[in-house]
C-alpha cells in the first residue's frame, strides 16, 4: 500500500516552516492591479487615438449634402482663439463665405493676415494665414462652388498663387510664368471655376520704383497661363474682375474690357465719371448686360446701373433700391429672386477724409471702413435688406457664387469659446506635463521594480 509514501510526505511536510508572505502577497497584488490598470489605460488611450487618428487620415470625399445645403449665414463672428486652420483635419469642405479685416483675431504673429472661413452648410469656422495683407474678395477668392480658396503666397523671391482645396486640405501652387514677376495676386475666378485670373507685378526700371501689372488667366487643368492685358500699376489692371461663362470683364483705370478665356478682347469701353465695374457679380444672370456701381456725386448714395458690354451704353435703370451712407458697394452676385447681393462698406466716423487724388479709385476696403455687411437689393423694394452682418473691423467678405445663386440663408450661431487647436495644444501639453511628473515621481519606484524583477529572474532555477 502507500503507507510509507504517506508517512514520508507527512514527515517531510512537518519540517517546512511557515513562509512570511503576507506583506509581499499584498504588494504583489497591488502591483499587479496597478499594471493592469496602466495597461487598460494604455489600451484605451491607443483605442481612442486610433478612433480619432484613423478617420482623420482618410481623405474625405466631397459631401454632396454640404453643397446642397449651402446657405448664407445671417451673421458672422470673429474666429475663436485657437481655431483650426483650413488644412487641419477634419476638413472643412466647401465654404460659404470668407472674410478679413483689421480685428486683432484676424492678425497673427509677425503681422500675418488671417482669413476667416465659414463652412457652406454650418457654423464651422476655419482660418487661413496669408503672408501679407490680402482682403477677401480682392486678393483672396472663393471658387464659385466654394471648394477652393485662392490666395497670394506673399513670397517675393518666388511668387506663387496658392489654391487650397477645402475638401482634401491639399494646397496647389501656381508658379507665375510672367517674366520678372515679383508678386502674383489672384483677382478672380472664371464662371466654371476651372480658371483663375491672376495679376503679376513686374518692375519696369531696375530700381523697382515703377511696376507694370500683367493680367493673366490660368487654366488649372495643365496650368496654362494666358495673358489678358498689361498696364501701369497705377491703372490697377484687374482691380475688379467679373466672370460670365466663357467671358471675363475687368476694369483697368477708367476702362472696362471684355475678353474670352483665350485672351481675345471682345470689347472695351470707358466708364462714366463716378462709376465702376460693380464687382465679381457684374454680369447679369442672362449675360446680356454688365452692371456698374454708380455713386451720386459728392454723396454716399450708390446705385446699380446696367450697360451694354459691347459699347458701354447705358441700357436703362435697374429697379433696385439705392444704398446710402456707405463708403462703397461691391456687387457679389444675383439671387434667384432677382435680388442683387452687395457688400456694403460701412464708414468709420472717426476716419480721416480720403485724399483727393484717391477719390477716383475704384471702391475698395481701406481705413475709412468700420465694417462690412451684405445687403440684398430686391427689385421693387424701397430699401435694401440686410442679409448678413459682421462685427466691427471685419472689412471685406467674399461669398461663393453657388451660395448666392442658391438664395438660401440660415440663422447663424457662430462658435464661441476657443477653437480646436487650443484644445489640441492644451491636451498635448497636459499629457506631456502629466507624463513628465509621473515619470519624475516614480523614477525611484521604477528603478526598484526593475531591480526586483532582475533579482527574481536570477533567483529562479532555469530562469
Amino acid at each position: 500500500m502507500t503507507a510509507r509514501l504517506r508517512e514520508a510526505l507527512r514527515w517531510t511536510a512537518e519540517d517546512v516552516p511557515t513562509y512570511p508572505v503576507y506583506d509581499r502577497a499584498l504588494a504583489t497584488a497591488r502591483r499587479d492591479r496597478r499594471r493592469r490598470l496602466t495597461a487598460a489605460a494604455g489600451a484605451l488611450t491607443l483605442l481612442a487615438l486610433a478612433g480619432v487618428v484613423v478617420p482623420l487620415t482618410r481623405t474625405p470625399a466631397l459631401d454632396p449634402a454640404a453643397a446642397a445645403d449651402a446657405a448664407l449665414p445671417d451673421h458672422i463672428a470673429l474666429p475663436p482663439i485657437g481655431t483650426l486652420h483650413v488644412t487641419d483635419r477634419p476638413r472643412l469642405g466647401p465654404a460659404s463665405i470668407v472674410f478679413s479685416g483689421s480685428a486683432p483675431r484676424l492678425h497673427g504673429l509677425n503681422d500675418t493676415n488671417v482669413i476667416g472661413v465659414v463652412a457652406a452648410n454650418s457654423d464651422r469656422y476655419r482660418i487661413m494665414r496669408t503672408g501679407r495683407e490680402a482682403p477677401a474678395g480682392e486678393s483672396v477668392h472663393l471658387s464659385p462652388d466654394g471648394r477652393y480658396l485662392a490666395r497670394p503666397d506673399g513670397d517675393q523671391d518666388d511668387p506663387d498663387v496658392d489654391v487650397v482645396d477645402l475638401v482634401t486640405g491639399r494646397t496647389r501652387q501656381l508658379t507665375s510664368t510672367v517674366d520678372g514677376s515679383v508678386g502674383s495676386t489672384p483677382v478672380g475666378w472664371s464662371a466654371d471655376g476651372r480658371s483663375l485670373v491672376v495679376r503679376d507685378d513686374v518692375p519696369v526700371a531696375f530700381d523697382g520704383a515703377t511696376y507694370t501689372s500683367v493680367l493673366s488667366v490660368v487654366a488649372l487643368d495643365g496650368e496654362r497661363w494666358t495673358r489678358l492685358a498689361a498696364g501701369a500699376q497705377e491703372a490697377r489692371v484687374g482691380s475688379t474682375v467679373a466672370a460670365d461663362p466663357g467671358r471675363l470683364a475687368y476694369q483697368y483705370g477708367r476702362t472696362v474690357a471684355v475678353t474670352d478665356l483665350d485672351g481675345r478682347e471682345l470689347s472695351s469701353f470707358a466708364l462714366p465719371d463716378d462709376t465702376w465695374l460693380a464687382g465679381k457679380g457684374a454680369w447679369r444672370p442672362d449675360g446680356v448686360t454688365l452692371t456698374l456701381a454708380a455713386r451720386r456725386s459728392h454723396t454716399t448714395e450708390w446705385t446699380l446701373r446696367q450697360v451694354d458690354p459691347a459699347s458701354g451704353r447705358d441700357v436703362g435703370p435697374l429697379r433696385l433700391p439705392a444704398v446710402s451712407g456707405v463708403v462703397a458697394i461691391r456687387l457679389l452676385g444675383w439671387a434667384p429672386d432677382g435680388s442683387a447681393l452687395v457688400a456694403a462698406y460701412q464708414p468709420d466716423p472717426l476716419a480721416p477724409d480720403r485724399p483727393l487724388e484717391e477719390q477716383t479709385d475704384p471702391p475698395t476696403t481701406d481705413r475709412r471702413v468700420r465694417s462690412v455687411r451684405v445687403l440684398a437689393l430686391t427689385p421693387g423694394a424701397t430699401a435694401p435688406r440686410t442679409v448678413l452682418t459682421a462685427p466691427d473691423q471685419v472689412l471685406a467678405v467674399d461669398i461663393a457664387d453657388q451660395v448666392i445663386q442658391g438664395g438660401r440663408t440660415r440663422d447663424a450661431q457662430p462658435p464661441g469659446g476657443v477653437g480646436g487647436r487650443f484644445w489640441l495644444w492644451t491636451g498635448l501639453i497636459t499629457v506631456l506635463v502629466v507624463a513628465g511628473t509621473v515619470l519624475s515621481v516614480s523614477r525611484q519606484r521604477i528603478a526598484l521594480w526593475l531591480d526586483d524583477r532582475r533579482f527574481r529572474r536570477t533567483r529562479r532555477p532555469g530562469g
Partner: protein
Amino acid sequence: MTETFHEFVVHRSPALSRTAYLLTGDHQLAEDLVQTALARTYRHWRRIRDGDAEAYVRRVMYHQQVSWWRRRRLAERLEAEPTEQAGADHSDTTALRLTLTAALRHLTPRQRAVIVLRYYEDRTEAQVAEMLGCSIGTVKRHAHDAIRRLRTVAPELVDTAAERSTR
C-alpha cells in the same frame, strides 16, 4: 463572522507552506508559489471570502506550479535514473525524507500534484479531478504513472499494491 484576508493568511499559511514545498521541493520556489497564490486570492477576496477560500488558493497553487514548470522545462529535464540514495548512516526519518524529496523530482508537476493531493491531503480521486480541473480518468492515469515511477526510483517508498486505488 467573515474572516479577513489577514486572518486567513495567518491561519492557513502553515498548511499552504507545507503543500507548496511538497509541490515544488524547493523552499524559495515554495515561498514564491504561496506568495503568488495569495496575491491572486487577495485580488478576488471579496468574491471568494464567503466560500472555500483555501480551496481557491490551493487550486491556484497547483495550476501555477504546472505553469511555472512548463516555462522552465526547456531548461530542466527529468532525471531518467535514480539519483543518490539516502545514506545508510542517516536516521530512518531523515533518510525517508531525503528519499522522498529526491524521488519527487522525477515526477511531472501534475503527477506530483496528484501524489500530494491523494496521499498527503487524502483527497478522493473525484476531489483531485475537480481541483486540477481534469477528469477522474486523468487523475488515475497521473497517479498510476507517478507510483510506477516512484517504484522505479525509490522502491522503499511504495508497496507493491499501492497503485491500486482504494477509493
